[in-house]
């Protein structure tokens, strides 16, 4: 099929990466817009990264004309004004598609002919965008502010194992984008997601649409407050805690040594032993043990009275023996697991996250060793406000499980989806390991620069474009795409509502009966 498209302008000069085009008078270039320069053999996709005014009239005369209009109220009309005044767009080449092999695309290495006409991109031009077997849908292709009905897919397992960074200023759509990704991946056989949700926004409590409504039903939700029917009370048995899980918290060396000594002596009962002040072979300063005891009581929400331990929160001596194991098993069965951490302190959230992530990573390392990793889905951990665990300040004090996953998780099919509005706080080597960056509107120049410096494609001319991204508009730079793709994130409610409606219609046909219940007259 031959794509038609609307003529937007014409190439007039420039050099590679800085192509200059004149805009046609009845059209308007937009930042981020994709246009096509076409000849008999190929289509070159170009993207606008800057726009400026230009005129055949000298600057002095333009200023005079403006003065006459403003000061003398004398309206001046140009002869052939569309020829004399116009706009110039700066474009960079994205990709070249050869017409004889429209499914194949290559990075542009030559310039289109001078005076090539530039036209709008149309759906038919995009047949080279293929859908991988395990497709991860990110949204629809966007050209400037115009959204095309062309879904953009990346290879899900590759993207997730090589970590994802989602960045953008508050209000630009990070949560909607994440909700869409969770919705898309949930129920798929290639991946599972562990979501540490400090804002409790993804499950959809209180009648809001959320993952609880996902037709696959493959969502496990753990919460410690007002547990909705079908959700799980977040309970973690004290016996599952190990001293190394506290590594991402700021315990002193002496306190860490004391924890290890108690663990060595009392095994699974080490926390209780510290609190109950049981003897330990290694001598520790009383103050160290007292502070450690006080910190553990506070952190784990425990009370101690009459030589007995009382559990008030998540950490328990009776319940939750299998919680961490069950979460890992659910992830291995491609479920999405959401942990509501909204009512925890940052430290408790990190402890829980660290505990689960350590167990999950250990299991996947084991699968790699025994050669069964190919049978497991990619496990991806969603981290909101990522600098809390991946920030420079935190990592200067020592690594943690999340930085280990960031560095070597891809070898074991474990990935991170790090969300932040402050990517500059994350060390460059970790940012560089995030091989897919989903960039939403970012006004702060320093943050934009941090992303640009670590992007998979050359985004050196895209700073202005990134600053101008509106709510729901984003740019995807990935090792798994040929060029940085502009997309529009669909509204989560719209996306989910369609799936929910079709699932409900199927469910309404199911009969419900309650055999074994004796029915009585009220």
């Amino acid at each position, binding site marked *: 099929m031959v794509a038609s498209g609307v003529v937007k302008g014409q190439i007039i000069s420039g050099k590679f990466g800085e192509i200059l085009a004149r805009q046609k008078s009845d059209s308007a270039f937009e930042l981020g817009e994709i246009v096509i320069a076409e000849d008999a053999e190929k289509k070159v996709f170009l993207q606008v990264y800057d726009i400026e005014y230009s005129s055949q009239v000298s600057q002095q005369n333009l200023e005079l004309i403006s003065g006459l209009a403003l000061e003398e109220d004398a309206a001046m009309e140009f002869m052939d004004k569309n020829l004399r005044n116009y706009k110039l767009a700066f474009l960079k080449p994205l990709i070249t598609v050869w017409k004889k092999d429209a499914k194949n695309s290559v990075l542009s290495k030559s310039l289109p002919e001078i005076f090539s006409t530039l036209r709008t991109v149309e759906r038919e031009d995009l047949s080279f965008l293929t859908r991988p077997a395990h497709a991860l849908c990110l949204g629809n292709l966007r050209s400037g502010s115009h959204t095309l009905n062309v879904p953009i897919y990346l290879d899900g397992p590759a993207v997730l194992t090589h970590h994802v960074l989602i960045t953008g200023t508050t209000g630009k759509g990070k949560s909607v984008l994440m909700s869409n990704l969770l919705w898309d991946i949930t129920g798929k056989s290639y991946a599972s997601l562990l979501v540490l949700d400090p804002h409790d926004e993804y499950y959809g409590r209180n009648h809001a649409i959320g993952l609880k409504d996902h037709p696959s039903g493959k969502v496990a939700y753990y919460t410690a407050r007002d547990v909705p*029917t079908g959700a799980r*009370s977040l*309970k973690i048995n004290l016996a599952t805690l190990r001293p190394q899980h506290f590594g991402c918290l700021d315990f002193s060396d002496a306190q860490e040594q004391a924890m290890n000594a108690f663990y060595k002596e009392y095994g699974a009962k080490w926390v209780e032993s510290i609190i109950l002040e049981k003897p330990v072979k290694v001598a520790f300063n009383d103050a160290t043990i007292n502070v450690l005891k006080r910190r553990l009581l506070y952190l784990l929400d425990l009370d101690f009275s009459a030589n007995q331990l009382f559990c008030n929160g998540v950490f328990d001596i009776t319940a939750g023996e299998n919680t961490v194991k069950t979460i890992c098993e659910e992830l291995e069965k491609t479920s999405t697991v959401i942990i509501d951490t909204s009512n925890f302190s940052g430290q408790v959230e990190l402890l829980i996250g660290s505990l689960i992530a350590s167990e999950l990573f250990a299991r996947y390392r084991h699968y790699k060793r025994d050669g069964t990793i190919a049978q497991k889905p990619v496990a991806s951990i969603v981290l909101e406000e990522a600098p809390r665990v991946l920030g420079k300040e935190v990592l200067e004090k020592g690594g943690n499980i999340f930085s280990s996953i960031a560095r070597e998780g891809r070898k074991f099919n474990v990935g991170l989806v790090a969300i932040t509005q402050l990517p500059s706080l994350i060390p460059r080597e970790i940012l560089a390991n995030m091989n897919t960056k989903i960039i939403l509107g970012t006004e702060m120049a320093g943050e934009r620069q941090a992303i640009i410096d670590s992007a998979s494609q050359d985004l050196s001319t895209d700073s202005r474009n990134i600053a101008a991204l509106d709510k729901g508009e984003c740019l995807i730079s990935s090792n798994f795409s040929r060029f940085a793709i502009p997309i529009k994130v669909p509204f989560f409610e719209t996306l989910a509502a369609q799936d929910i409606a079709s699932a409900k219609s199927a469910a309404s046909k199911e*009969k*419900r009966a309650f*055999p074994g*219940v004796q029915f009585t007259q009220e």
Partner: protein
Amino acid sequence: MKFAHMADCHIGSWRDPQLRELSSEAFKTAIAQCIEEKVDFLLIAGDLFHTAIPGIEHIRSAVKELKRLKDAGIPVYIIAGSHDYSPSGKTMIDVLEEAGLVLNVVKGSIVDGKLHLKLFTDKKTGVKIAGMLGKRGTLEKQFYESLDKESLEKEKGFKIFLFHSAITELMPKELTSIGASELSYLPKGFDYYAGGHVHIVKEYTGKDYKNVIYPGPLFPDSFAELEKLGNGGFYIYDNGKLIRKEVLIKKTAALVIDAEHKSPEEVEEMIAAKIHDRQFTDTIVLLRIAGRLKTGKVSDINFRELFRKINAQGAFFILKNTHKLLAQEFEEIKIEEKSIAELEDALVREHLGQAKITGVDTDKEFLLAKKLIAAFETEKHEGEKVYEYEDRVRKAGDKILEL
């Protein structure tokens, strides 16, 4: 207020008649304790019987004990469990209820598509009691999904909820393979949750759920349970105080033998050393032998002679567990004891590649097999006709095979 809570009596369990009789005896002992303790009422949280239609001699002994309770003015509130439930309603619990010996509290109505359970009020104490039956394969979860919890939660007074389900959050490490439901399915704010189904002894109190109790079986019904629990028991709630009453029927003696790299003769010697000079009067002897023999076969171990000696020392019964005892010759055994799912995966993998299908590699074949197994495991829905069920399963198979 004082009441007793028992579950998983499994009257009629065990294949061996001698052990089977003990389940009835345990029930008899527990009932005697209830009468002696002068409880106001008794709760039985499922699986009174091992089957929906038990043998006549077990019905007879249970009825006799329930009659004693009735005569003592102690009402019995009961629910059906996964063993004594029957979708057709042909269960012995209904017969006992007709005879006025028990009250099955799983009663209610459908209001706006929701299952509205009735709360029964105990006349003497004013305690309100409701319950949900247990079904095999955690199928009662569907009932909980439709349960009108709000109507139960807003009711005032001292409330008890009977349930016969495994609760995910309370499962011990060794029982993760059991299907379980989330705690949040239970109505909140009751004063006592009388649990059954999982043979563990557990007391749990959390924010919205107070006194969630699993009393364990009245008499252990497997080798592992006898080994772990020794004997059964039940709970008495006495004005806020929880007391676990042991039901001592027989003593148990667990003998564990590590046969790794031993000859059959050496194993015999180890067992002989363990039983030497011991009295097993009225005791169930549990003999667990594990490991890989260095020579010979498992059958080379002269168990007959060893058992004769143990019996001579007064044993009531000898149970032997040699699941993990292997001979050298059986090195080719490829599958060790794992969970059912793992075992299934291992078996499927072992047989991959036998059917040659163009375009289907072994990975795809594995996935196809797993999907088909899952599709064929689908149970018939309540109220679904057989032909509808068959058609649904067939279509699911066709879809998987892309036919």
